[in-house]
């Protein structure tokens, strides 16, 4: 067991045996993918209604995220960007917790300090996400170096986008990982866009995966719409990592179906037909067809699944919305372990203002 927090028991703990995706968990994985899609739909509409302030959808990236998350063990640490909601779900973070974060209520484990999508769940070793692109990459390497030093048989995985390959931390992180043989899996979701910049103009290398060569370790391209393929490469990379063989860069090729975020209008830089074409390889569709053909799903159970997930999401969101708002005093918490005199004074200043009828919550 690793530092501090206990890993909560998670139904999603895959304890994978064999190389293939465990057959008996395919349906469960499918449910997680559907859940992510449902959350996307719901969140986009809630944002339009002004009930949440912002959202960055992951539609199109469900298989990549769920496949990768299934290949991990509870003791592994996840260093996400801001789009990794499905990873959090598979790790065992309750929907309700995710919604508490979107709302920023008093139940939010991050105490409403962050914009929607910037999740942090210590119990699931899901490290706090930030907005600056790439910063999690070097951190994941550092945590992996710590695992090495503690002789913990675990790995870190970090999620980032195609755009993040241009970041300082990509370069530093991969280089450190190569030099120190850190047990890290670099998982790049190449969704073809960094807001309006297409992948081809982000960098000239033929693939993103091949950049690993510059750091002396392997890079792998995988079809990110294929749950099982993703699972296999991540699992192999993880095993490599914990065997002391060093890091791996994985490029999961996907397509971002939705806008970059609710602040974005993708029609300014891409056509609907491009998106329609990409949607033909919708990862949910692909897995559904496979499950149907294998008899693990039929039209009726599929229908039912979506409905039950929708109902579950609706309930969870409403509960999050009903939760009490944050106590304004939490503004001054967690800057430091113990408030400095200055912070205590400012808290007192705020209290005085409230007493005098100003700045009420």
């Amino acid at each position, binding site marked *: 067991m690793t530092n501090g927090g206990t890993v909560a028991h998670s139904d999603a703990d895959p304890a994978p045996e064999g190389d293939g995706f465990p057959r008996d968990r395919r349906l469960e994985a499918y449910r997680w993918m559907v859940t992510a899609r449902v959350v996307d739909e719901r969140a986009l509409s809630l944002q339009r209604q002004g009930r949440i302030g912002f959202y960055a959808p992951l539609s199109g990236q469900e298989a990549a995220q769920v496949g990768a998350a299934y290949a991990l063990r509870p003791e592994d640490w996840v260093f996400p960007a801001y789009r990794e909601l499905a990873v959090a779900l598979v790790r065992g973070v309750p929907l309700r917790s995710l919604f508490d974060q979107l709302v920023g209520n008093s139940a939010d484990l991050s105490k*409403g300090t962050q914009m929607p999508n910037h999740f942090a769940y210590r119990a699931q070793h899901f490290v706090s996400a930030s907005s*600056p*692109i790439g910063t999690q990459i070097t951190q994941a390497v550092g945590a992996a170096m710590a695992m090495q030093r503690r002789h913990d048989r675990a790995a870190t995985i970090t999620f980032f986008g195609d755009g993040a390959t241009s970041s*300082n931390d990509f370069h530093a992180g991969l280089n450190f990982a190569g030099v120190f043989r850190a047990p890290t899996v670099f998982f790049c979701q190449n969704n073809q866009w960094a807001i309006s*910049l297409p992948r081809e103009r982000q960098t000239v290398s033929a693939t993103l995966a091949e950049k690993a060569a510059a750091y002396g370790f392997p890079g792998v391209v995988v079809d990110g719409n294929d749950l099982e393929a993703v699972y296999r490469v991540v699992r192999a990379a993880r095993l490599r990592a914990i065997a002391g063989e060093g890091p791996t860069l994985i490029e999961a090729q996907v397509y971002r179906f939705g806008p970059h975020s609710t602040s*974005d209008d993708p029609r300014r830089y891409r056509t609907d037909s491009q998106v329609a074409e990409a949607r033909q390889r919708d990862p949910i569709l692909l897995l559904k067809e496979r499950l149907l053909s294998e008899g693990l799903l039929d039209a009726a159970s599929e229908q039912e699944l979506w409905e039950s997930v929708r109902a579950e999401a609706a309930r969870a969101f409403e509960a999050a919305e009903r939760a009490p*708002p944050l106590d304004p005093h939490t503004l001054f918490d967690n800057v430091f372990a113990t408030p400095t005199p*200055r912070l205590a004074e400012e808290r007192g200043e705020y209290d005085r203002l409230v007493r005098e009828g100003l700045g009420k*919550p």
Partner: protein
Amino acid sequence: MSELTIVQAVNRGLTEAMRQDPDVLILGEDVGINGGVFRATEGLFKEFGADRVVDTPLSETGILGAAIGMALYGLKPIAEIQFLDFIYPAFDQIVSELAKFRYRSGGQYPCHVVVRAPYGGGIKGGLYHSQSTEAYFAHTAGLKVAIPSTPADAKGLLLTAIHDEDPVIFLEPKRIYRSVTGEVPDGDHRVPFGSARLVREGSNVTLVAYGAMVPAVTEAAETLANEGISAEVLDLRTLVPLDEAAVVRSVEKTGRAVLVHEAARFCGFGGELAAILAEKAFFSLKAPIARVTGYDTPFPYALEHVYLPNPEKIAHAARSTVRGG
């Protein structure tokens, strides 16, 4: 004259400069076909093409490094940083290189880059889409720092920045990008650096602000006027060069100062202003100098209304200063 928002005025300023001088070019993330995430560069890609409105890879290090190289060669690059919060990957290029090129080369290599960045809170942006870290840049010798609060100043200070010979950090108050409108002169409108704007005359207390805090301070001054307190309001417009004379003169007249910014208080720009006053207007001061600022916490998300200075907090501080409360 046209009635414009601040972001439109920025857009007009950029258009004007690019039409005037083929050496002016823009580089940044999503500035081209997308027109910038705030639409500040809307239409420029169409008019000036990909060679002058350059969509870059996702690297602020690269944006600033490239802009500096261009400037050394004689172009006039304008680097857009999508949010001020994302300027830090470029911080080394800004403080180690941009700020020091002219100095370290004994004047052989002037380095004139304009760095534009939307800054500040009030848009529910949380920790990473809200910060005001102007103090970092103001403390860095060799950088000028401009922060407009009106559409006319947005265009006028921007054109001055583009025609300046020194590096300029140009911070745009995104919170009032669209909410504040005003008349903006057409053509080559310029507002000089180092000259504060007297927003409102008054005699009992001086309120000093810049950027998105100017409307808040102005509103506070109106409230105070109704209570019989006459507040003078100064909009600094540029932090470097600073119109110290205007600040000192005003406080010599009123005897009282309330310094307002949304950045964290500790070591913020208000500290510099207070130090100037405590040295140069000391014998005129009738009351302690007050600061109304963000608290010394990271910028919050759900509680930004608690964090930010607002007209009530400002008026309250001014009242206490005047009444000795």
